[in-house]
């Protein structure tokens, strides 16, 4: 199994795919420093060694390359990073994130520092895939459901559904790691920068 956080002992399916109950609440033992009430998770197999994928992700400054809404991440020290995320109307949302777990080559978990506009936490695991297929990368994000003015911004920010953003970002991460570039149908660099679909 790639992930111990399975569906309440009923079967071997990942926790976030449960049809019942409160999966976010049940992560207590698994995601130690949970921040946020909603959970989204997704796995992707990337045809590269897990140490290489871990190393790229562990340098948080790299994440802006494939995370569409992230303008930049400044690494402040070994465990603290500052996230600047694009919001509608040219605004940005910012927060500090702290690394809460770190196992070289296998696992990184982080959560927003107290007082963040959008309390959130994330966890990414790297497990060698069977049959020489590379690495199974499983990302799990917990976040507060949008409410109020900030909620509206967050909803737009995450295209109403963090799951959509997460799966697209994971696809871009895979493209970048496997091919060295992010696939685009843009006809020229200006279009690519504008991130046309």
């Amino acid at each position, binding site marked *: 199994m790639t992930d111990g956080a399975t569906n309440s002992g009923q079967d071997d399916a990942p926790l976030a795919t449960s049809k019942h109950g409160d999966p976010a609440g049940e992560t207590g033992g698994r995601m130690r420093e949970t921040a946020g009430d909603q959970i989204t998770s997704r796995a992707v197999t990337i045809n590269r060694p897990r140490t290489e994928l871990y190393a790229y992700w562990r340098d948080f400054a790299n994440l802006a390359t494939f995370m569409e809404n992230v303008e930049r991440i400044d690494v402040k020290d070994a465990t603290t990073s500052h996230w600047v995320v694009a919001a509608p109307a040219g605004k940005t949302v910012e927060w500090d994130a702290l690394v809460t777990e770190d196992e070289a080559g296998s696992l990184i978990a982080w959560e927003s520092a107290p007082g963040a506009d959008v309390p959130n936490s994330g966890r990414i695991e790297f497990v060698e895939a069977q049959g020489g297929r590379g690495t199974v990368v499983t990302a799990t994000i917990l976040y507060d459901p949008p409410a109020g003015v900030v909620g509206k911004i967050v909803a737009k920010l995450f295209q109403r559904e963090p799951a959509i953003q997460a799966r*697209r970002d994971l696809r871009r991460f895979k493209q970048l790691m496997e091919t060295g570039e992010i696939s685009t149908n843009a*006809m020229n660099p200006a279009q690519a920068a504008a991130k046309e679909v």
Partner: protein
Amino acid sequence: MRALAWHGRHDVRVDTVDDPEIVNRRDAIIKVTSTAICGSDLHLYDGYIPTMKAGDILGHEFMGEVVEVGPGSTLKKGQRVVVPFTIACGSCYHCGKQQFSACDNGNPADNQDIAEKLYGQPMSGLFGYSHMTGGYAGGQAEYVRVPYSDVGPIVIPDGVDDDKVLFLSDILPTGWQAAENADIEPGDTVAVWGCGPVGLFAVQSAFLMGAARVIAIDHFPKRLELARRFGAETINFEETATYDALMQMTGGIGPDACIDSVGLEAHGLFVDNVVDQIKKSTFLGTDRIHSIRQAIVACRKGGRVSMPAVYGGIVDKFPLGALMEKGLTLKTGQTHVQRYLPGLLNAIMEEKIDTTFLISHRMPLEQGAEAYRMFHDEQNDVTKIVLKPGMASAAAATA
């Protein structure tokens, strides 16, 4: 540049648009010398493929000269190349297994959503074939941006005519893969539904793979005549009850392998087709599937059904019982073009496969709208149209 763009059902126009530029490291820019209209372009023309947007540049069968390369391309300026219609990265698990049309990465991340919803997992990108397959600008244009140019395009030796090699881009490997998927054994009888370009290449390929007999089925006399040229026996389904004829012609056994190269716009006034047509017009179904139904029912017990034809949606009245009870094998899929290119280029050079017979018309790109109308309306006489961007300036100069 000038490019043929889709604007709606039965509305394509040659527009002036920005030239493409290098975006990614592995890109190349190709100056198109020849580009064909594919039968599957007619599905776009007829408005059957969702996620098209006005202004989308069409065309996925093209070749030309390399005029610009990114630092990660292995091509060189001045080389002549044929470009596969499938956009594959060459680095993912599926590309490693030579399943190029199943490439994980060729389709941009945001465009993968629709195909993932519809099909469970997204497929590779395609040139000029809707936003579900990537929203890439196609090759019916003066220039094309070709991503992953170190993987896809095949370099053509000097002195070989465009007409001979252009069909490496799609229909020749598609016909070849159709025959390969039929697992032909020496002595087999192979039946081919549809004598369009893919069907005609499947006929040639089936004989090359050892078929004793090929029976080709269509209703356009000129297309049946072309199939006969390659040694096929023919059935005109307007004159003949196809199932009855196939059973008699095979001594009551049925064809060992059946190839459906017709697809979602099957013609003919058959009861199931009429029902499909009504469902399609009322959005209760998407595809007309008469030919694949007939192929499954006609196929001999334990035989093979190969389906290169394009289907996009959900159907009913699919003869699942016949498929199961007779123990048939069904193989299908978009073509893994890159897998077949070196072998098929050799087959062309050694004149084992004839490609040029197919071309009935050569026209300037500027007459693209007229070309689509002709290909759509006059299928007996128009077997294949090749558009030549080069001819446009010549025609303009003499006009």
